[in-house]
């Protein structure tokens, strides 16, 4: 046993330096291996392509305004990119053999994924907002067009007319905001325009609703029929005025012999109640005077207010529905200077000068004049049918 140890000692003593050199060399090789391996394996190679790709994805997301449309996703992407760039820089400043860009690659990949996701989510939300704004604008355009149609069909009071204009202005503004790409704001403004336009349409439909009232239309038809019957039975001439049809028909022997285009009072959607209300009265009247020279070329004066009108006026006044100091009005005529294609008088019926010349020859003092709202087929009745249905559909 001692001989064996003594041999080992002799061996170590003889090979001492060689052994040391061998161990040293092996250590050097192992260390060199450890130092060179990361370089050889490419761990120390900065992932420049990945960095540029992630950066480009982030720029794409920014260009797509993901910050606005998908703020949470974009914030995540920005944050992930910062973490990745920070890690990148940390590795960059390390001595070459100790660099390890593998986690950086992972971080850059994650940042790129998040940026792409933010871009895609931003695009999706932007398109959704655009679609909603498109719909709101389309609805608003329809509502405002209806409202303008109403404004053309009847004279609106100052408040309602202002509201109509406000709705058109709001719609224009909504379009301008839309063009700027601010879809949610455009949607909101278009909805405001719609609400204003619908309020105008509703007001107009309410005002015109009596033109679609079946019992009232039946009464008007009865009045027309009675006038025609009288003309037929007496062989005389009679006039029928249909307010919403803007028509003045002349009957002779129960047959229509002339039909003129007529303009009414500018608030003729209403029946005349008092002076200054600019409404054409509805009822049975007679021509009381023929004026060969009038402010409006020629005129045929009517006996408004008749007994029925006066009775109704007195009743309404008693109920407090007519203010103090206001009378039932008067000076209602059929006169010339009309045929303008719009209601503009203060309650009279205006036809063109050529037509009043013709009518003037055909009628005399005492000729009956029946003025009715319409026959249920005129513009107010159409307005109630079309817009009333649309309004109930949108509300």
């Amino acid at each position, binding site marked *: 046993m001692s001989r064996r140890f003594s041999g080992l000692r002799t061996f170590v003593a003889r090979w001492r330096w060689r052994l040391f050199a061998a161990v040293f060399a092996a250590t050097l090789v192992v260390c060199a291996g450890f130092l060179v391996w990361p370089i050889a394996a490419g761990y120390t190679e900065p992932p420049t392509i990945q960095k540029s790709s992630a950066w480009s994805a982030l720029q794409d997301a920014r260009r797509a305004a993901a910050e606005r449309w998908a703020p949470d996703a974009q914030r995540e992407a920005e944050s992930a990119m910062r973490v990745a760039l920070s890690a990148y820089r940390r590795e960059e400043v390390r001595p070459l053999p100790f660099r390890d860009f593998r986690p950086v690659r992972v971080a850059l990949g994650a940042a790129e994924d998040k940026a792409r996701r933010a871009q895609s989510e931003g695009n999706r939300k932007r398109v959704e907002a655009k679609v909603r704004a498109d719909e709101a604008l389309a609805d608003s355009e329809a509502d405002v067009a209806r409202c303008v149609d109403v404004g053309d069909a009847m004279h609106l009071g100052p408040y309602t007319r202002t509201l109509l*204009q406000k709705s058109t202005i709001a719609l224009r503004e909504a379009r301008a905001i839309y063009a700027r790409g601010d879809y949610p704001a455009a949607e909101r403004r278009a909805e405001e325009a719609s609400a204003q336009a619908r309020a105008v349409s509703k007001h107009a439909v309410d005002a015109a609703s009596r033109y679609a009232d079946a019992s009232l239309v039946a009464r008007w038809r009865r009045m027309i029929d009675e006038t025609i019957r009288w003309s037929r039975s007496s062989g005389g001439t009679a006039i029928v005025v249909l307010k919403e049809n803007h028509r003045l028909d002349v009957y002779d022997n129960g047959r229509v012999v002339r039909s003129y285009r007529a303009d009414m009072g500018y608030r003729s959607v209403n029946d005349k109640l008092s002076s200054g209300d*600019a409404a054409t009265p509805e009822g049975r009247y007679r021509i009381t005077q023929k004026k060969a020279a009038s402010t409006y070329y020629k005129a045929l004066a009517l006996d408004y207010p008749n007994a029925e009108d006066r009775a109704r006026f007195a009743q309404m006044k008693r109920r407090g529905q007519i203010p103090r100091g206001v009378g039932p009005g008067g000076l209602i005529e059929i006169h010339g*200077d009309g045929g303008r294609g719009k209601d*503009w008088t203060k309650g009279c019926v205006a036809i063109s000068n050529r037509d009043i010349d013709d009518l003037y020859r055909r009628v005399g003092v005492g000729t009956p004049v029946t003025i009715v709202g319409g026959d249920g087929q005129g513009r107010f009745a159409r307005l109630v049918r079309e817009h009333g249905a649309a309004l109930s559909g949108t509300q």
Partner: protein
Amino acid sequence: MRKMMALLSLVFALVLVAGCAKPPQQAIDGANASIEAAKQAGAADYAPDSLRAVDDAKAALDAELKVQQDKFALFRSYKKTDELVNDLKTKADKAAADAKANMEQAKNDATAAIQNVTTALTDAKAALDKAPKGKGTAADLEAMKADLAAAEASLNDANAAMTSNDFKGAKAKAEAAQSTIQNVMSQIQAAIEAKSGKKS
């Protein structure tokens, strides 16, 4: 022995200098102040791209500071940090300048639009007062007055938007009112022409 002592002192001094490397805090504070100024100038609304460049530069600076702070004190170096701080400050100053310029431009545009509409409204009101009045014009005049009232309301909204620095909104409101006023002016013009046509 003396030489050895001198060498050791030199090494010690170098270590001290290297170990005491500090971040350029004053420059960083200056850059941060510039960022704040850019934000105050409305860069988020009026120079978003420039502000984004500032954010990126700030992120790069933060990353570099963190890298240096994570290092052993003797090995810290703030040479690159200086460059990044300078870059950040330059970008923040640019963002502030861009924001101011763009805001001024938007303000000028809105002011011009409001001025145009105000002038047009005043002209339209004057024209409406002088518009031919006569047979059956009451309804038209009432409608035109109502139209101008709506335009005036929009103009008031535009002025309110100006007060709250919403220049884009102010411009949109003013321009939206413009065509209503033009429409009224056209109607008045048509009425004047119709009347002069009748006279002749």
